[in-house]
């Protein structure tokens, strides 16, 4: 089992003829993802690495039923693309594009919520369930994905795309495999944040522990701490909180758009304190993630 998507998930790529999309479509296919069709308005009849291109999502789905869509179109076009996918019954949307206007994001998330559709991103590298599926750019070319990721019992959710692969790599080197690894996206508002993903990991029989990569800014971690206590989440969570130095420099953006600390809100100090109170294990150093996990899942053979 994996959360969100697996080897049977059929995928379309919206904006497939773009430079970036062409490249990650090749990598997804190489990793075994079932990319059944692509959409770029006006480019019906073309193909990208053997994937047929259609003018509309409706047209593509008529020929090739699919459950998921990866969207990689310019920022001003993202809202329309997402609404098109939602209108045509897509159940999982991964928005790779960055710099999407916030109001646009909220608008398609509202529709997604009404239809109970999962959205990952915007501004995400995507997700990987090792040896099953890869959606978006996560991990890069197939050879690189194979080096860094391997199947196993640990879920990863990360506010940083690059660090999703870095954590998978750390676990793989130490013989710990992963169930599903999700880069949630670097924007202040994303479709699925830690609070949305933890219940999915909790329900997944394969996932025995979860690693979170957290950054300063926002209140998702704080609310997650409350949620874990209130809902009695039993899946062990190991959190790594990067950017502790940012606490001393409020008002400055480091890294992702969501990292700004305002007053006491969003400081790593507060996140750490609340996590500890909720029984979430906070890794002291990056390498400590492994030893913390071993306490929960033992040593794998």
């Amino acid at each position, binding site marked *: 089992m994996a959360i969100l998507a697996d080897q049977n998930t059929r995928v379309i790529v919206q904006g497939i003829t773009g430079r970036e999309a062409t490249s990650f479509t090749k990598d997804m296919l190489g990793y075994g993802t079932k990319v059944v069709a692509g959409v770029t308005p006006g480019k019906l009849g073309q193909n990208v690495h053997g994937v047929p291109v259609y003018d509309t999502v409706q047209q593509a789905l008529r020929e090739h039923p699919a459950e998921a869509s990866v969207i990689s179109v310019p*920022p*001003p076009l993202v809202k329309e693309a997402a609404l098109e996918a939602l209108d045509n019954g897509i159940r999982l949307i991964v928005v790779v594009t960055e*710099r*999407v*206007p*916030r*109001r*646009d994001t*909220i*608008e398609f*998330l*509202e529709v997604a*919520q009404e239809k109970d559709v999962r959205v990952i991103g915007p501004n995400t590298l995507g997700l990987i369930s090792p040896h099953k599926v890869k959606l978006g*750019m996560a*991990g*890069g*070319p197939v050879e*690189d*994905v194979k*080096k*860094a990721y391997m199947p196993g019992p640990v879920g990863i959710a*990360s*506010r*940083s*795309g*690059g*660090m999703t*692969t*870095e954590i998978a*790599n*750390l676990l793989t*080197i130490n013989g710990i495999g992963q169930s599903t690894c999700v880069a949630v996206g*670097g924007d*202040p*508002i994303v*479709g699925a*944040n830690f*609070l949305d993903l933890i219940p999915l990991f909790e329900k997944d029989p394969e996932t025995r522990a979860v690693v979170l*990569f957290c*950054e*300063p800014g*926002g*209140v*998702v971690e704080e*609310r997650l701490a409350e949620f874990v206590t209130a809902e009695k989440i039993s899946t062990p969570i190991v959190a*790594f909180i*990067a*950017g502790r*130095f*940012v606490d001393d420099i409020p008002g*400055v953006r*480091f*890294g*992702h758009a969501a*990292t700004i600390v305002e*007053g006491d809100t969003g400081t790593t100090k507060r996140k750490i304190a609340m996590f500890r109170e909720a029984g979430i294990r906070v890794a002291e*150093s*990056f*390498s*400590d993630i492994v030893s913390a996990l071993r306490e929960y899942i033992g040593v794998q053979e």
Partner: protein
Amino acid sequence: MRLLEFESKAILKKYQISTPRGRVFTSPQELSIDSPVVLKAQIPIGGRGKKGGVLEASTTEDARTKMEQLFSRNLGGYRPKKILVEERVDVAQEFFMGIVYDALAKAPVVIFSRDGGVDIEELVLRKPEKVSRGRFSVRSGLHQYRAREIVSDTGISGKQLLGISAILSRLANIFLDFDATLAEINPLVLTGDGQFMALDCHLEIDDDALVRHKDLMEIEKDMDRVESERSMTEFERKAAEIDALDHRGVAGRVIEFNGSLGLIIGGGGASLTAFDAVKAHGGKPANYCEIGGNPSVLKVKELTKLIVSRPNVKKIAVIMNVVSNTRVDLMARGVVKGILEAGKVPAETVAIFRVPGAWEEEGFKILSKYGVPYCDRSVSIDEAARMAVENSSI
């Protein structure tokens, strides 16, 4: 982008929300008054009053003197270039209204309080019964009836309820129409003669949406808007120029610190991780930066040269997460070239090079050739930071 008060108020007026009579001045010469006024420094930060950015005056002479004072003041790192002079308003009652996005509900949320002119977060803790909130849809906007529900939740009724909720729904329209991420009127006041007025207003516009607001984009480019003392250091300015050399990838977001270990780190999350790790192992970073998206050799070279040329920098650490898009060989080439062009020896200047991932074999070949200490993906970011600190203290 944060709009200045007078810029925000111009928008309020377009939406029929009253503000005190006033005018913006860039020098005191033309100022002449016949009734008491308030002089407000136009700077893009909150808490101006406490910082001495708001002064009152009753005579022209006094007003001119106080304006001079404001122009010469450093207010939280800003020097105002414009002063808003407004008639002094007779305040009977104050309210607060604000709209932001709730990242968890993924919807805009209104916060209203029947106490205004205060720190809202503090008020929520002390007198929660005076504060109410309510979400609305970006597709339908804030309906009049929703606005009335939110305001009446704090116990307001009658004529006040109608007046305030009308203003609240207009503020919600502004929030949506201008792609704001924050719209706040604090305080909204009821004047002695029964009129509602926005005494202060704060609008924050989504930078990613500025492309559809050309007029606001022009405002942002205006160099005469405000003078920031928190301006970049010479080093940061040069680094920003390097990042702008071409559009391939990022080699930027440089922030100066005063340690001796130069950092070439990336991407976003890994930069935060590496910086923390260096500090945790007792290292003193000379800078923060972010590399990502496969920057050109030229950019990496120039940034390296800039960092190793700083007199306080003894060594540099090059640390990134396992890269898939950025190429290790291009990073290696850029770093080595930058050090050579700065007249230094790569083997002695790099404390550790830890960038595993795409094209690593080619990259490691270059590093070996120059005797640069490097490690592969089996060494974690944290371990690499420890090695960097140890190697740089020898």
